[in-house]
């Protein structure tokens, strides 16, 4: 039995689900950001897995776009952790529920 593209997609789906689960269920704000990173990683894997099912010239785009996605994840992590540091100074807590002063 050879490696099938569907295995890669299933792995990406499982990683994405775990990432979403971490981002939504964990109370610690650092884990929330790490869950978002995990979900972004899974999407990159899905991109590459689909790119390998396309013929010659079409398969290039799926291997270039993850580069941009990785760079955007870097920018997101940069701003996200700056905000965490900023709010941590005011609240002295990393519980996501204590960051609720903007609720409606």
């Amino acid at each position, binding site marked *: 039995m050879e490696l099938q593209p*569907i295995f*890669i997609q299933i792995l990406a789906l499982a*990683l994405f*689900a775990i990432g979403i689960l971490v981002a939504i*269920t964990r109370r610690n704000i650092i*884990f929330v950001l790490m869950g978002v990173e*995990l979900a972004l990683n899974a999407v990159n894997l899905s991109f590459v897995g689909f790119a390998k099912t396309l013929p010659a010239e079409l398969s290039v785009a799926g291997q270039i776009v993850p580069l941009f996605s990785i760079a955007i994840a*870097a920018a997101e992590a940069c701003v996200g952790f700056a905000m965490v*540091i900023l709010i941590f100074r005011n609240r002295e807590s990393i519980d996501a529920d204590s960051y609720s002063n903007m609720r409606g």
Partner: protein
Amino acid sequence: MLALIYFIILAVIALGAAVCVLLSRHPLYGALSLITTMVALAGIYGLLGSPFLGVVQIMVYAGAIMMLVTFVIMVLNGARDSKTPMFDKVSLFILPSVIVLAGLVGFALVRAPLAFDTTALRGSVALTSKTLFDVAQTGPGYFILFEILGLLLLSAMVAAVLMAKKRLGSIETENTEDNH
């Protein structure tokens, strides 16, 4: 056959480390598990024939982003906030909904006809650089995106520095502005 064995090993490492991220209590252990996941994913990229992407994954994700995460964990010293519970009651409702979402998407994926194309190009350094910096008018135009990405990273860096500064427009900063 060999590719499948390598893939299964790397996939088990990635999934196990991802579950460790979900279940670990200390943020630093979570960050280490996340790094393990990312290195395993880089191995899968190499296995699939995108070695450049695998190296970028290790350098940018496992190197730069996780360094930032570890740095922030150490600056905040979040470990002393160990009274915060890991999960709350809402988690009980999120778990089945995420499983149902994954099941639905997985059902759609399994039904889709997918097969590896043997003519798919290998994402080597030469191919990636040739595509990325193709400035010909008929080319894909990725270089414009590349420039915009540089601007985005610069603005993100400036925003991070401005936000993490102690206090904007405080007396000390106004005084230093008057001095020069």
